[in-house]
């Protein structure tokens, strides 16, 4: 059985991404199984994240596996000063797979170097969160029927938002057109624009969240603009409401447009959008379960259709 870790979405090629999405489709139709009979999965949450942990643990339970772990570093020996290496080595004695979330960037990559047990990165600081990206891709494919040739508009914090960076990296395999909408302070980093240039991916940079941009989009990917990202509070006050989506802005959008958001949201999507059939952010979170079932079985080298 071929097992492997999943640390970053950038590590996956187009074929591997599509394989995971096909697995996720399978689990949407067949959520409960005994594929993980006799397997133990550790969920090590050095940083609390209830949403992500419950999603992973539900995925394991619905696959018939068992879960060990902790939900907060203060209840583990990390609080006694144990190194990450020692914690991972200890847990490796018990588990067939380790799902870990850590506040330090690069923690999951390092963990793969100290154990033979496959590691699934459930978020390492501001760095990587591949299961989020996979559920984003799954949501895009499910709502649009394809990944190729879509116009994807990303709005809000494009500078620090790891979800939008990962989405750019993952979508680069599928000939997208990107619209990057943000204030200048929170613009998409140059390295991602350079990457698009290099790969011949069409993109447009806007500071205006205009009807033209919305109406050309297949996917609106909204993100939260966080106050603490701004060095200048006046600037925050000026831009905080410029990138809020309201229902009336969707009047002339494509019928197939869907609105995504990694959640939690604050005020960047007005609640009057929630009842619009184009709002997809709650279902999007639900898709996380299938995406995580896909990741867990793939990392354990289990083929669900056999």
């Amino acid at each position, binding site marked *: 059985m071929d097992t492997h870790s999943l640390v970053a979405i950038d590590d996956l090629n187009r074929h591997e991404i599509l394989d995971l999405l096909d697995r996720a489709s399978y689990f949407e139709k067949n959520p409960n199984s005994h594929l993980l009979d006799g397997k133990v999965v550790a969920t090590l949450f050095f940083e609390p994240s209830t949403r992500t942990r419950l999603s992973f643990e539900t995925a394991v339970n619905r696959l018939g596996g068992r879960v060990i772990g902790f939900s907060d570093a203060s209840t583990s020996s990390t609080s006694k000063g144990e190194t990450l290496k020692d914690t991972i080595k200890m847990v490796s004695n018990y588990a067939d797979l380790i799902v870990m979330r850590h*506040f330090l*960037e690069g*923690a999951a990559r390092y963990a793969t170097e100290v154990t033979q047990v496959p590691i699934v990165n459930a978020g390492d600081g501001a*760095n990587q969160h591949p299961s989020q990206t996979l559920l984003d891709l799954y949501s895009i494919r499910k709502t649009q029927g394809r990944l190729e040739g879509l116009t994807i508009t990303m709005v809000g914090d494009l500078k620090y938002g790891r979800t939008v960076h990962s989405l750019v990296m993952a979508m680069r395999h599928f000939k997208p057109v990107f619209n990057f909408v943000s204030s200048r302070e929170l613009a998409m980093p140059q390295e991602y624009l350079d990457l698009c240039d290099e790969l011949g991916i069409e993109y447009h940079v806007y500071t205006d969240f205009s009807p033209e941009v919305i109406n050309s989009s297949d996917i609106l990917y909204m993100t939260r603009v966080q106050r603490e990202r701004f060095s200048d509070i006046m600037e925050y006050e000026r831009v905080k409401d410029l990138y809020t989506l309201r229902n009336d802005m969707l009047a002339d959008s494509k019928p197939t447009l869907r609105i995504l958001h990694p959640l939690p949201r604050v005020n960047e999507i007005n609640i009057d959008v929630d009842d619009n059939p184009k709002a997809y952010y709650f279902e999007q979170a639900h898709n996380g379960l299938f995406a995580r079932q896909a990741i867990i079985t793939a990392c354990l080298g289990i083929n669900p259709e056999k």
Partner: protein
Amino acid sequence: MMSDKKTELAVAALAAGTVIDHIPSAALFKVVHILGIEHMSNGVTIGNNLPSRRLNRKGIIKIESVEFDRATLDRIAVVAPTATVNIIRNYQVASKTKVELPETLINTVACPNPKCITNNEPMKTRFDVIDAEGPVLICHYCGRTVCGDKARII
């Protein structure tokens, strides 16, 4: 030409040892640190802000009776990609090479990201070279990029 001559006159010839030339002036003391010259008892001559046609101003280091291994010399390439290494034996230049940046640097550069695992766990750093010209390095763990001239050498 006059100024070049003065440079040569200012520094004594070596019987045996290593001469590292064409170091950008700003990087001179970083190179001193990489080579561990602070802790040496050998004769050392350091010149800086010397005129150079290629670099405008350059630094030069001569160390008596020492030859460094390639791995040490290649670490110099992070901060001083233009540096040349002359090995002197019996007053003659036995070899003259440019420093060469390896593809991967293990425990050479500290990650500038305080939230990087390498700054919080007893472990070696690892940087991959993504642009040899700059040079630009990327942390294998947290993905932070660093320009060679800004890199903090361990």
